């Protein structure tokens, strides 16, 4: 079989390509419809504001919210910072005595760092462990939720191992304890059905560039009834009901809205097709690499995710270096230049050596069966070369 002669992109957890339909929807807002959507005083501004509000409707619909509950941000990192710091700081400013903030060991760094920032402000972070399958045991959460608990933040889908937490069950426990419930749904939106009512979420973070929309835009769902109150991260012109000042980037908002509109219609279809591609890829890789381990395999996962540990003492870096046209990753992209073993993998019990031999594969809407097959062949060939080199070295 021939190896790829152009890059195959299997890193859809880091970022998704922009859907051409999204790009098309955005284009007019860079050109003729460039006005500031807050310029309600003139026709050009109002036309852009209408498009922004239409987009807000689409974003809300994807998660079963109403448009008035959507606060637009620069991305999921900002949404997570706003949700966690905003909820804690607002409550404290109102004399709320509760200080405990609960989250998971496998959360995205921006959630963990936001919680850590709050520790310096006198809050009490509680970082819960997950099982070997990456899932949070509801009883562990129940035991942690005491009367002092202000906020619980649990991601919907993990960005490395793709595990889907049972948010409806977990949300019910949080609500029973009277705490606020936040979920980082950046990796979940468009991949699994999300309904803020069913989850009983007070806050939900979303990202544009993980749903085939543009980078630089995201949203925070902020429940209206009963009203979830937040302190803003920064203020100014008073946009987004004072929770997030700054000129709305209309083209990005429109693109995000279009991406959500498409995801609501096609998400399930995508998911089924992507599962087919994943099976092609995994069957091939397993056949070629005996002893390959799929991490968190038994847990419910998004269909595009595979997190695989390779045997034979071969590092993921070496495998990637030997298959330079296959774009996969070793873990979360964020600061991926640092090549420490993933804390997510360590949290599910992988030894550092195994974590270093682990690849994250993220298939997406535009992954073809041929891509899946070629990528698997290329990675397997690279593994074989590296493994035999390792064997020789140890002879």
């Amino acid at each position, binding site marked *: 079989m021939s190896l790829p002669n152009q*890059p195959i*992109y299997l*890193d859809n957890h*880091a*970022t*998704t390509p922009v859907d051409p339909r999204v790009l098309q929807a955005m284009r007019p807002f*860079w*050109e003729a419809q*460039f*006005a*500031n959507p*807050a*310029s*309600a*005083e*003139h*026709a*050009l*501004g109002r036309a852009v504001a209408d498009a922004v509000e239409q987009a807000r409707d689409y974003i809300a619909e994807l998660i079963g919210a109403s448009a008035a509950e959507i606060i637009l941000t620069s*991305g*999921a*990192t*900002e949404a997570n*910072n706003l949700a966690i710091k905003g909820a804690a700081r607002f409550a404290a400013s109102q004399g709320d005595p509760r200080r405990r903030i609960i989250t998971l060991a496998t959360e*995205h*760094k*921006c959630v*963990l*760092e*936001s919680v850590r*920032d709050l520790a310096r402000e006198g809050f009490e972070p509680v970082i819960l462990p997950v099982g070997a399958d990456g899932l949070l045991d509801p009883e562990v959460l129940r035991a942690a939720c005491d009367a002092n608990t202000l906020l619980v933040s649990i991601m919907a889908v993990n960005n490395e191992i793709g595990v889907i937490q049972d948010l409806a069950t977990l949300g019910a426990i949080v609500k029973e304890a009277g705490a606020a419930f936040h979920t980082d749904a950046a990796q979940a939106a468009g991949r699994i059905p999300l309904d803020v009512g069913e989850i009983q979420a007070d806050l939900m973070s979303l990202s544009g560039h993980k749903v085939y929309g*543009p*980078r*630089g*835009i995201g949203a925070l769902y902020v429940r209206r009834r009963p009203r979830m109150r937040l302190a803003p*991260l*920064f*203020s*100014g*012109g*008073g*946009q987004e009901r004072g929770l997030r000042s*700054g*000129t*709305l*980037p*209309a*083209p*990005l908002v429109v693109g995000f809205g279009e991406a959500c509109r498409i995801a609501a219609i096609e998400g399930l279809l995508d998911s089924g097709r992507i599962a087919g591609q994943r099976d092609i890829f995994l069957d091939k890789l397993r056949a070629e690499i005996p002893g390959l381990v799929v991490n968190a395999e038994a847990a419910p996962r998004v269909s595009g995710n595979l997190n695989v540990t390779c045997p034979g003492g071969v590092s993921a870096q070496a495998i990637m270096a030997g298959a*330079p*046209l296959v*774009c996969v*990753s*070793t873990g979360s*992209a*964020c*600061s*991926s*230049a*640092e090549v420490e073993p993933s804390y997510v993998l360590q949290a599910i019990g992988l030894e550092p050596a195994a974590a270093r031999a682990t690849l994250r594969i993220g298939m997406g809407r535009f992954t073809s069966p041929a891509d899946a097959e070629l990528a698997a062949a290329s990675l397997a060939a690279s593994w074989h070369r590296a493994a035999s080199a390792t064997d020789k070295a140890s002879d």
Partner: protein
Amino acid sequence: MQRLYLDANATEPMRPEAIAAMAEAMALPGNPSSVHAEGRAARRVLEEAREAIAARFGGRGRDLVFTSGGTEANALAIRGLAAGRRVLVGATEHPAVLAAAGSDAEVVPVLADGTLDLAALEAALKAGGAALVAVMAANNETGVLHPIAAIAELCRTHGALLHLDAVQMPGRLPFGLGPADSLALSAHKLGGPKGVGALLLRPGLDPAPLLTGGGQESGRRGGTEALPAIAGFAAAALCPVPEGLGRLRDAIEAGVRALAPEVIIAGSAAPRLPNTTSLILPGVAAETQVIALDLAGVAVSAGAACSSGKVRQSHVLAAMGFGAEAASAIRVSLPWNAPEDTEARFLAAWGAMREKLAARKR
């Protein structure tokens, strides 16, 4: 009828160079933090943009932090550098700066021409301990330029840090970090896309982050960088500053004065941005003027765009000493691509508007 867009200080029309750069960057699927070929290609575009923008504004790439826009850049500078310092702000600052400075900030008044009262600044600097001074390079409503060199000299003498909100400046006048410690920039005010801005820092300054997580921007600002938008920002920043806007603005002002001697032009005694004029037609509500001009196909504003919808009394004009007149000011701000017949079309629409409204008053 082709509409006449004269609300550039709310947002500039996009430069074609920026649209082209974004379209090109949009074709790169990678996350700049990913290590694979796609990620590295994205990283290259990101770092080239960073170097280009920093160089354009007199700084180093490693000292430039990309943000979601001017508001966040101002907040990052002021909140991130204020530790242990008093915060001094000008009375005519943008709400983003006033909000970031907080309710404890000391407000330095402006003179009747809109420029910062240097004597008051000096007195305030002398009065207390270490300070952070946050002022705008150019005012968004009147275009008035603060005397930055003199402000910087006072700050230097008294050991204060100087943050400049330069959001309205580039794209209208050549400008750079110069003697300041930090500079807030916004892409969409210089012909780039909305949703991106930057904070340019003097080497060695390291503000505490507002957004944490992920470690991007050297830990100063978490979040995946908005790459296509950043490429557009760089392309727009490199566009030449337009010529002739000052002449056009002056012609409009002369025309308005000829039509209506009662008109007051706020800040006209001070150095101003060449594209901005604040026209006060006494006795006629700004909102009424703006609506009439909008119906005639001319887009202007009654003040800052920010959270408009409702037109509030301008704190900028109030600080300059205007009373009731402040409610009668419209802002006309010329975009980089103002058409040649702008003067004639604006004066025709403005003249007709005044005739009609003056008749109604009688």
